[in-house]
């Protein structure tokens, strides 16, 4: 049986159809483009994030490349996207550390389907464990090739050469040469050496690449781009999910293009205001057949009713474990649908040139979006270029390409470039949501605190981190797919948040039932040394055991071990999170300051899902599709946060963009119980809705 920690949930919610065909970039064309220098190409052989999604997991010819130019510049080409997780910085660091050059000398060309090799997408915290090691190997291959060139040039033993600060120097100090001078006039190609020696990350903080452009307002996100003759687009949205367009009556307006094809209707106009005016003048008749399911208790019943049956993962005998238990518990937990609400809404700028299409868009899957465009317009992928400017975040919410397809459809009809920026209401309504879910847990424990039985059923929210690391002899763990009334998809951490919430609150309930301290109870039932170590690190820094209103949680997902301690107060039936200490271990630390930034950010974002975020819907309509109706965390909601980094320089680095979000909600729920005895089993945690203890 494979190690449970190695399991990765299939990204069932990626909403991606594999494109029917893919044209690889022609290596010779690319070499011509670069001019002279040294090019290191990768032979993937399935190294990259093959995440078991049909044809997309097949190894591609190449999946990143590195070029040392004649002026000494180092350029890396990767299909990954920068959405705020700072991989433009960390991948630059990886190359610079191997090449022994300043990280400022390294430039990344990212997420441009015409220039970068195929990449499945930026999700699943895969960049650090899979792309960074490849870039390290490419940079190390380049380093060795540069040393060979210098040795040959000077006719000296290469062991007597030193490489530092972007230069190669003879040990006797007689000569020194920069990378650019070495590669001048050369047209060298190397394939990445699989056995080349690479170093562990140096655990060095480096400032965010392009931070200066951001603080001066110069960085161009997709909505900031323009093209000559560009029009502004708007799309007519159905009045409810599932509605179909029966008829459309559109007045003729000067300069305005109206498109109506099947269920799609939209306008393109010279400026945003006239596009909005034109949209208002469209008279549409819709056939509405909305789902009868609404948010609230009704939703959770519908999940149970429509759930697929399944035995799940069984070990030992739950019945035997229950029979031997001194304490038995049964509890139900729920999580609501929530929205990603990236501050940059979905946006795309599309331009046709003859039969060729270029689309600039903020997406986490540029090649997937290219496939969607190819399918939508029936043209080959090699006539489509998707370019992703560094984007105003995604959190798993920008995997699909509908905005790109809509902009391209409008541009095709108008014969001019069209920019489409979704309104906040569109973003809240027509994107997709983090799945809601119901989780039922039954368990038994001996009076000594050893858990003897564990049965865990997750309905709808997903299977990520469903296993947990508790050492339990008898267990049944199952995820049941259901019919979701709302469109749902990936969200930072996927279902690891829901599964940790249910598991870690339930563990707290069991600890209370056997009258043990929650820390002692966890330690008794956990053997994994890495998880025990982060738990110890968190409680040591937090000062566990002192004060009222304290709670904890711990867990594991996507290669990262996490333990969270929280302290809360209740004011006017409202939960206020006062202090959070979160310890995180993800192998060797790459950039400690940016790792802390990710942890702090994940905890701050988690405050929303823990305390107030919840999509409300009825009759196929979202009832709170605006920031004035859908509360997200603000300055005043943020507790004191301390991120404790547990560095393991001896272990490969795992990603950190997701897992730090999973610990807060259960720790806060447990802290509320510790404070006033009220057990909160639904996210968002709501004291006013809870039955009194």
């Amino acid at each position, binding site marked *: 049986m494979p190690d449970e920690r190695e399991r990765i949930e299939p990204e069932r919610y990626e909403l991606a159809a594999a494109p029917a065909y893919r044209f690889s970039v022609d290596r010779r064309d690319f070499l011509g483009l670069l001019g002279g220098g040294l090019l290191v190409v990768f032979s993937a052989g399935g190294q990259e994030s093959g995440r078991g999604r049909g044809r997309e997991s097949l190894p591609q010819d190449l999946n990143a490349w590195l070029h040392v130019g004649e002026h000494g510049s180092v350029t890396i080409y990767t299909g990954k996207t920068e*959405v*705020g*997780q*700072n991989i433009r910085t960390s991948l630059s660091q990886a190359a610079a550390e191997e090449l022994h050059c300043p990280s400022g000398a390294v430039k990344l060309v990212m997420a441009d389907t015409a220039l970068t090799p195929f990449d499945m997408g930026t999700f699943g915290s895969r960049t650090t464990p899979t792309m960074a090691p490849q870039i390290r190997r490419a940079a190390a291959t380049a380093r060795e090739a540069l040393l060979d060139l210098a040795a040959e040039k000077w006719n000296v033993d290469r062991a007597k050469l030193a490489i530092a600060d972007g230069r190669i120097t003879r040990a006797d100090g007689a000569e020194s040469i920069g990378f650019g001078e070495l590669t001048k006039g050369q047209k060298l190609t190397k394939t990445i050496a699989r056995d080349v020696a690479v170093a562990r990350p140096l655990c060095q903080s480096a*400032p*965010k690449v*392009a*931070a*200066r452009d*951001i*603080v*001066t*307002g*110069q*960085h*161009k*996100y997709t*909505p*900031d781009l*323009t093209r000559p003759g560009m029009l*502004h687009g708007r799309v007519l949205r159905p009045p409810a999910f599932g509605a179909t367009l029966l008829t459309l009556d559109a007045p003729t307006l000067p300069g305005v293009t109206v498109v109506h094809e099947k269920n799609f209707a939209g306008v393109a106009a010279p*400026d*945003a*205001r006239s596009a909005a005016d034109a949209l208002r003048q469209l008279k549409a008749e819709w056939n509405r057949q909305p789902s009868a399911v609404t948010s609230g208790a009704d939703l959770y019943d519908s999940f149970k009713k429509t759930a697929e049956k399944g035995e799940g993962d069984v070990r030992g005998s739950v019945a035997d474990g229950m029979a031997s238990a001194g304490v038995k518990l049964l509890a139900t937990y729920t999580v609501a649908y929530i929205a990603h*609400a*990236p*501050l*940059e*809404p979905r946006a795309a700028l599309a331009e046709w040139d003859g039969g060729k299409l270029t689309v600039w868009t903020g997406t986490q899957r540029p090649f997937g979006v290219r496939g969607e465009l190819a399918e939508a317009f029936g043209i080959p992928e090699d006539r489509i270029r998707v370019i992703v400017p*560094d*984007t*105003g*975040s995604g*959190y798993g919410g920008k995997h699909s390409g509908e905005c790109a397809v809509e902009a391209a459809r409008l541009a095709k009809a108008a014969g001019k470039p069209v920019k489409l*920026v979704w*309104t*906040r209401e569109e973003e809240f309504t027509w994107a997709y949501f983090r799945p809601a879910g119901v989780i039922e847990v039954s368990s038994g424990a001996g009076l000594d605190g050893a858990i003897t039985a564990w049965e865990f059923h997750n309905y709808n929210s997903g299977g990520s981190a469903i296993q947990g690391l508790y050492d339990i002899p008898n267990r049944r763990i199952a995820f049941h797919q259901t019919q979701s009334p709302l469109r749902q998809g990936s969200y930072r951490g996927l279902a690891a948040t829901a599964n940790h919430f249910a598991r870690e609150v339930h563990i707290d309930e069991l600890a209370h039932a056997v009258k043990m301290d929650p820390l002692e109870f966890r330690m008794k039932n956990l053997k994994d040394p890495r998880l025990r170590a982060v738990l110890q690190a968190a409680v040591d820094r937090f000062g566990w055991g002192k004060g009222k209103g304290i709670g904890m949680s711990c867990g594991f997902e996507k290669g990262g071990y996490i333990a969270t301690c929280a302290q809360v107060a209740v004011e006017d039936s409202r939960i206020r999170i006062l202090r959070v200490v979160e310890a995180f271990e993800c192998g060797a630390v790459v950039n400690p*300051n*940016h790792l802390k*930034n*990710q942890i*702090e*950010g*994940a*905890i*701050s*974002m988690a*405050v929303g899902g823990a305390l107030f975020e919840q999509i409300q819907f009825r009759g196929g309509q979202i009832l709170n599709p*605006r*920031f*004035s109706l859908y509360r*997200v*965390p*603000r*300055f*005043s909601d*943020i507790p004191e*946060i301390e991120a404790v980094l547990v560095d393991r320089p001896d272990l490969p680095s795992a990603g950190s963009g997701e897992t730090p979000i999973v610990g807060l909600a259960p720790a806060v729920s447990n802290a509320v119980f510790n404070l006033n005895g009220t057990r909160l089993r639904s996210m968002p945690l709501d004291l006013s809705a809870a039955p009194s203890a």
Partner: protein
Amino acid sequence: MPGIIELTVNGTRRRVEADPEASLLSVLRDGLELTGAKYGCGEGQCGACTVLLDGQPVRSCILPVRAAVGKQVTTIEGIHHPLQDAFVAEDAMQCGYCTAGMIVSGVALLKKNPNPSRDEIVRHMNGNICRCGTYLRIIAAVRKAAQSHA
């Protein structure tokens, strides 16, 4: 109806064709190609569109452009302030989409209160949303800029 509107933006007189009822944000972005201020919500809830009007922070997405006529409009492109260095030093951003609005709001605060307390920063900045959750670093950056000024 659209007409020629004269604005003073970042110290420069600019003439632009716009409907007087159009939002200041849309005129800045589409008419004057100043894209530093961002659209985030269109209802003044997120602060990504914040600009200064005679030194006061306003939500340009809900302000008709006619209201800016005769006043000094300052956008992130016209700001040169130690707070920008402090944001870089504190890594007070992830995706950066909220950053322009945060800096403009922060500059307005520091102008009227050169040494704000943590609570004063939170109260003043509470209308600016950062979805990446870099709030604590933004607070640290404002305090750092205050100290560097002092």
